[in-house]
């Protein structure tokens, strides 16, 4: 008989090991799934995990990995700070949208003036501000009226999506677009474009910002009093209060920072890879970043790796669809397995597996 026995303290070893075990288990279970679909599991797994990085077209895919991982990492870093302190911002998708709208609106307001030194930095500030303000709504409602930030931030995603639709059809619509929805293409506007810094490398300012955020978060958590307060509040809110941590300030700080980072991600995306404000602009980065944050154990370096891994499953998954004819649903199931196994193996962090009967005392 198998029993689970609670560990006195969570196991450090397993905390680091579970993501790796989860990835391996996902590969095995995914391989079985692909085999049932009549595809060679080895080829499928290789197409997803190996070819994008080392295969024939790696020169293109490596850059795309950064394009896909950049916003995920940037958003997840912000979320992880709040999650560590038990502040649950689930609405990063909405903050991402608002950042994109603010950033694009500033850029389009200057069109067709050419002054990159002025316009692009202003767009960055506006993007961060847009996400920050949108996150302040659940923040202030929570600190003033003790509302639940999970619900408020989540529901504001749908509000943001409606604003996005309205912007694509109205205020920000391309006046030369023959009545079709969507803004001008910012990539074709030199002063506002967030193009690749080196062509073909995928590296754009958003990816740079993501790397800076990783370093910043690492220093904040290990060296700064705010990082200490965040960790303390997460582990023991009561102790934190005795230590003089102001919970309201911490809530506003965590929500505001995660909102600003999500807003930045949205701004870099709209001025770069996406190019324009359109009704379908958002594709779920804000939600996927939640998985990335947990897959990375809420640790900055972990999030960096998790973001790249998640991007790999997307890029490789798409490649497997096109070259092997795997259905999109199988790829989604495969990605779902990753989170499932992560949560399942997390049990090992807090519990020991024992065989045999419980000893009678």
């Amino acid at each position, binding site marked *: 008989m198998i029993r689970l026995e609670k560990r006195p303290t969570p196991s450090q070893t397993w905390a680091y090991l579970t993501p790796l075990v989860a990835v391996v288990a996902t590969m095995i279970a995914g391989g079985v799934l692909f085999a049932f679909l009549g595809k060679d599991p080895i080829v499928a797994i290789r197409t997803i995990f190996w070819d994008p990085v080392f295969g*024939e*077209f790696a*020169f*293109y895919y490596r850059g*795309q990995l950064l*394009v896909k991982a950049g916003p995920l990492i940037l958003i997840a870093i912000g979320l992880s700070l709040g999650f560590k302190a038990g502040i649950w911002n689930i609405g990063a998708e909405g903050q991402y949208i608002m950042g994109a709208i603010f950033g694009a609106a500033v850029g389009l307001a200057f069109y067709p003036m050419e002054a990159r030194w002025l316009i692009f930095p202003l767009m960055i500030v506006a993007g961060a501000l847009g996400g920050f303000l949108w996150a302040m709504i659940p923040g202030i409602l929570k600190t003033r009226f003790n509302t639940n930030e999970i619900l408020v931030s989540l529901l504001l995603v749908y509000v943001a999506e409606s604003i996005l*639709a*309205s912007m694509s*059809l*109205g205020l920000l619509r391309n006046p030369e677009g*023959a*009545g*079709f*929805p969507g803004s001008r*293409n910012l990539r074709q506007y030199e002063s506002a474009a967030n*193009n*690749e810094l*080196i*062509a*073909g490398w995928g590296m754009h300012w958003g990816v740079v910002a993501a790397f800076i955020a990783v370093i910043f978060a690492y220093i904040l958590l290990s060296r700064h009093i705010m990082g200490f307060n965040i960790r303390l509040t997460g582990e023991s809110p009561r102790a934190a209060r005795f230590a003089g941590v102001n919970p309201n300030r911490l809530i506003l700080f965590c929500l505001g920072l995660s909102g600003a980072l999500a807003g930045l991600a949205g701004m870099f*995306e709209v001025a770069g*890879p*996406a*190019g*324009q404000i*359109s*009704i*379908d*602009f958002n*594709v779920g980065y804000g939600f996927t970043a939640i998985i990335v944050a947990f897959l990375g154990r809420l640790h900055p370096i972990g999030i960096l790796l998790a973001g790249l891994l998640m991007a790999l499953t997307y*890029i490789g998954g*798409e*490649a497997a*669809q*096109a*070259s092997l*004819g795997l*259905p*999109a*649903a199988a790829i989604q199931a495969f990605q779902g397995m990753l989170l499932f196994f992560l949560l399942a193996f997390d049990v090992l962090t807090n519990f020991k597996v024992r065989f045999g009967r419980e000893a009678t005392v």
Partner: protein
Amino acid sequence: MKKRTLLLTGVAAAAIATGAFADGHAPLKVGFVYVGPVGDGGWTYEHDQGRLAVEAHFGDKVETVFQENVPEGADAERAMTQMALQGADLIFTTSFGYMDPTIAVAAKFPDVKFEHATGYKRADNVSTYSARFYEGRAIQGHIAGKMTKTNKIGYIASFPIPEVIRGINSAYLHAKKVNPDVEFSVVWAYTWFDPAKEADAAKALIENGADVILQHTDSTAPQAAAAEAGGVITFGQASDMGEYAPLPRVSSIIDNWAPYYIQRVQAVMDGTWESVDTWDGIGPGMVGIGEITDAVPADVKAEAEAMRDAIAAGEYHPFTGPINKQDGSVWLADGEIASDGDLAGMSFYVEGMTGEIPN
């Protein structure tokens, strides 16, 4: 510009690499990028039927690849680049939102041919194609106007783009012609495919008294909602949706892409492919009218079929004046026929429609 050349060099190197094993007898590789799942039973399903028809027609002379559920935006660009890198010679991108990505990728792969559905931007290696769905909408409007008892017709629209607005106007004009009391309520779903959202929209419209539901979204969810409510008729969209016949589905608009796809693949094989703008309707067979079921009274069915044949023969155009715009201003004088340019950019309702196009 320097950045650009660097990327082009990389792409060219890849093209040479793939070309190495593409000897004269290698099959022509044709890629398809889909916005929904191939099993949506509507828009994407019919494009995939076109792909299968290409395979059936050319056998081992072609190899097709496809990617489904591709979001419109940066991901679409990657999907197309991926196909081009892997040696596709011709790529069909089958949603309006793929327009800018198609143009961008086409610029990097001058030797690959692209075909973009429902867009308006072309290049030397980018053609556009679409179908005159509004012809089918006219027939639906006629049947709807004749059959509604509550005089309320619900319309589930996707995005306020000219193609969708054209459909609404065409259906409304022809419903109004046979039933002056008819009223249209339009729900904007802002999605091409979202069964839950589409079902909610259908239910809301039915609760408000609509007994005819027209849809410009791709799933069969509105059909299911209508079947459940009872006493409501619907029309199959993009695909026949025949599993809901004879009620609620009384007829359908079927997108038949197969002949066009076969023709374009043939053109690439023959080396005669050129950038063109194709807009075909019932006549050339790109738009099919699904069987009108016996739930429709025989005289109405006969009229609808007569209209279908008149449109196919080019004797009748659904947008023939006099037609005023919603604000009362004159759009088409008596007997005047709408120009394709006007239709392509249509962004207004015709007179009598209530509500506003989201703006």
